[in-house]
């Protein structure tokens, strides 16, 4: 066992070469997942609501987006955005940003489904009651449906955030020095403690994800009380 290698390199695993170089390691992983979930929320909200529309020209693009993204491995998506998007866009993105875009687009599709399911899960009576009192469809969505649906969705969002945190490790393949790649670099330099190094970062990921998962379970229980019935 060579835990000293882990100990010596622990700061590198935490924040990469920062402050002498770019930020990396766990800090970058967290930044990527925070940025990813934030962007994905808005895309997912739009996609989810569009998919609920009765008009085909609104619904269709979001159905296509959601179904395609959910049918493709994230790894593929990362390659697409990194190597192939520049061919289409004629412009390049730095690797961390390009990974971030891939995460946003990928997670957005899943959040879209959460939003759709969340809105559908509300009792039909909520929409009827608000329409019956003269609110327009948009007002009903804005003041009655979404405030409830989004709150009910918080646990699902947290779960999605956990998945995304795990998925940031895939940015490794295009050379983003997040936690996994930092660990691979350390391992490649030393080559004598792979078990220790990988176990360490497994535990680091675990701590973050487990805390979030536990939080989401708590929220779920708390939330069950306030849901509309019937």
């Amino acid at each position: 066992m060579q835990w000293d290698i882990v100990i010596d390199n622990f700061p590198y695993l935490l924040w990469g070469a920062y402050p002498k170089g770019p930020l990396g390691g766990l800090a970058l992983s967290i930044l990527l997942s925070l940025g990813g979930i934030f962007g994905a929320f808005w895309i997912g909200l739009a996609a989810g609501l569009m998919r609920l529309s009765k008009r085909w020209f609104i619904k269709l693009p979001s159905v296509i987006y959601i179904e395609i993204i959910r049918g493709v491995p994230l790894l593929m998506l990362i390659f697409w955005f990194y190597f192939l998007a520049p061919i289409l866009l004629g412009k390049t993105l730095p690797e961390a940003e390009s990974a971030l875009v891939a995460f946003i687009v990928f997670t957005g599709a899943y959040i879209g489904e959460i939003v759709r399911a969340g809105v559908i899960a509300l009792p039909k009576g909520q929409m009827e009651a608000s329409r019956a009192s003269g609110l327009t469809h948009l007002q009903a969505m804005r003041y009655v449906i979404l405030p409830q649906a989004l709150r009910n969705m918080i646990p699902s969002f947290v779960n999605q955030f956990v998945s995304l945190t795990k998925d940031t490790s895939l940015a490794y393949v295009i050379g983003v020095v997040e936690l996994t790649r930092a660990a691979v670099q350390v391992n490649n330099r030393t080559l004598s403690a792979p078990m220790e190094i990988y176990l360490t970062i497994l535990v680091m990921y675990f701590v973050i994800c487990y805390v979030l998962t536990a939080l989401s379970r708590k929220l779920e229980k708390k939330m069950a009380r306030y849901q509309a019935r019937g």
Partner: protein
Amino acid sequence: GRIDDIKARGALVCGVKDSVVPFGYVDQASSQLVGFDVDICRAIAKDLGVELQLKTVTSSTRIPMVVNGQVDIAAATMTHKHARDEVIDFSLTYFMDGQKLLVAKDSGIKSAADLAGKKVATVKGSTSEKNIKTAQPKARVLSFDEYPQAFLALKQGKAVAVTTDSTILLGLKNSAPEPANWAIVGDYIAAEPYGLGIAENDSDFRDFINKTLNDLWRSGEYQKIYNKWFGKDSNYYLPLTWQMELWP
């Protein structure tokens, strides 16, 4: 052209590897990328009068990144091949090497001929991957993302040999706790002249790089860099036995 872009942005973006000792790797003490390729890039940046900015590439990402313009130069232990000329341009050969095998000292393997039916480790998208398949069609080739992973596979017994350019093998061997347990064997399976990869159709930029390389060689600066990494006092001693192509 590209030179104007670089000057405008004030930085030359170079793609180097981050785990190939001694060409490009992360120095433990400083957490910075260092190595022979890094120093060559630094010299070019200096000539251009701009900052040097480094990006990590791997054997399989370096060409797309040059094509897409994510890096200006790929200085990443890249062999100059005709097939690659179709998509990118190369500078003059700035380093000359050949492909060999790294094996355990007592393995009894002497050359590619002994590899029939055995597993050989190398990296994805490298010339070594193709060469070994030609040299020994009966070997099973395991391709990894990085050389150290290939060496780790060898150490753990998942493969009997690592094959790639001999300097890289030397770097791997000397980074092991007991270098004496490993041996670099066989004839050159293929010659491996390294070139700097740049985007196509920009002869100004290529000329500039080639001229810089020439100047480095003539002024003796190149030899200094070379000796820093491959000299007698370094961990990776390799006598300088070739000449850069020089322009009058």
